């Protein structure tokens, strides 16, 4: 049984264009607090664009134009006075392929806290331990923190990237197909981690893998041509979707 803890992200009439291409269309959505929400839909439907709108990552693309509102903690992040760097500390992101920095495991984790001047010395050690533990990788790396992050396996690198995101104490974690480059064993560990993280964080995950969405998420959003076709608790979406398009997509009739 899902507990409704209220929403963490409220999207109102969001529209996003890249040049003349209208990618997100008048979209309204609520992302639930401390739960995992999966966004699924066929290629090009706007999943990643929507995800990247939650920490204004689309801003870095020159041709992009955004209208509408995205409220996080009751503040519209598209207000002109929003500090985008603070926002991106608050909203962590994990990408398709693990992207560790060419540094040691330790330096990867403390990179964010140092930039944001969150801690020094012993306190950094504490953050490293906490973040690596929360990412379920501490036991595997605690005796080789000074080794290069590139020495880790793909799955370990992805968990290190999650630790790096957690190190700056975010409230929301965005994941853009975090397991697409991983083998089944590494995928299982990340999925387990996603479930654990939802106790303390609001997690939004974009995935092409429907079974993954059904395994890890509490809520599912089905996006098609930039619009929300259906959203709801994952059990209902996967057992008894209300919309014909959702049914067709999840049963593999199109996509």
């Amino acid at each position: 049984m899902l507990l409704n803890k209220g929403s963490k992200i409220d999207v109102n009439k969001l529209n996003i264009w890249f040049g003349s291409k209208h990618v997100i269309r008048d979209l309204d959505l609520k992302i639930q607090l401390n739960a995992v929400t999966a966004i699924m839909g066929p290629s090009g439907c706007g999943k990643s664009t929507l995800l990247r709108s939650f920490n204004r990552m689309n801003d870095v693309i020159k041709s992009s134009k955004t209208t509408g509102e995205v409220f996080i903690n009751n503040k519209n992040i598209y207000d002109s006075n929003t500090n985008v760097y603070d926002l991106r500390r608050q909203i962590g992101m994990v990408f398709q392929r693990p992207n560790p920095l060419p540094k040691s495991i330790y330096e990867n984790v403390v990179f964010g806290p140092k930039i944001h001047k969150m801690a020094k010395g012993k306190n950094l050690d504490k953050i490293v331990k906490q973040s690596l533990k929360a990412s379920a990788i501490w036991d595997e790396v605690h005796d080789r923190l000074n080794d290069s992050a590139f020495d880790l396996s793909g799955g370990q690198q992805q968990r290190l990237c999650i630790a790096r995101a957690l190190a700056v104490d975010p409230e929301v974690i965005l994941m853009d197909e975090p397991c697409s480059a991983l083998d089944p064993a590494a995928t299982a560990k990340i999925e387990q981690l996603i479930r654990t993280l939802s106790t303390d964080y609001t997690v939004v995950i974009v995935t092409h893998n429907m079974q993954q969405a059904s395994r890890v998420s509490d809520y599912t959003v089905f996006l098609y041509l930039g619009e929300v076709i259906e959203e709801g608790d994952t059990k209902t979406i996967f057992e008894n979707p209300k919309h014909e398009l959702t049914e067709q997509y999840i049963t593999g009739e199109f996509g």
Partner: protein
Amino acid sequence: MKRLIDSGLEQLASMLFHMGELAEQTVSLAVMNYLESTHDYNQVKNLSATLSSMADPIEDIAFEIIARFQPVASDLRIIKSYMKICYDFRRYGRYALDIAQIYERLGGMDECDLSFRKISNEMGLETMKMVTTSIQSLRNHDAELAKTMSKMEKHVDKLYCDYLDKLIATTSTTECTISSLLVVRYLERIADHATYIGESIVYLATGEKITIN
């Protein structure tokens, strides 16, 4: 384009529909055997055994589809419902065998009071109608037809209660009253399973969980 899961679902449906045909035939033979002494015990016994043996392969196919294709939405509802219906068909076969065995042990209704015979006859025919309806609604995934069994089931229940009232009021207990008491009880259970099948069909077709019984 045909999906990979479709051939598995088609195979599952074909096996279950065949099981349904045999289940209908088994109940029909058992009921007619009891009501009209058609001497079909061995045929009922063999059919009931066949129905029992069909359940495992159906379950195996359903599990294989789940393991290989991770079905969702209507695919998932179909598999869940088919597995439940498979069990109901098996129960049809088992109760039909029970009815046939009662006839072998205690005889039919020839010696029974006319009023008992009338109720048992009516119950037998109504129950067979429900069995046929359950199988027709399965074939077409017809939720509306499935829902019509609610009225029939109420009728069967009423006849069953009428029978009990009549039995309580009677002063003598004969082999006939004992045998028909058991048989009407089995008929009432068969009617219940017909409604369970109806509920499964409504669920697989619409996602709605209702109680027909």
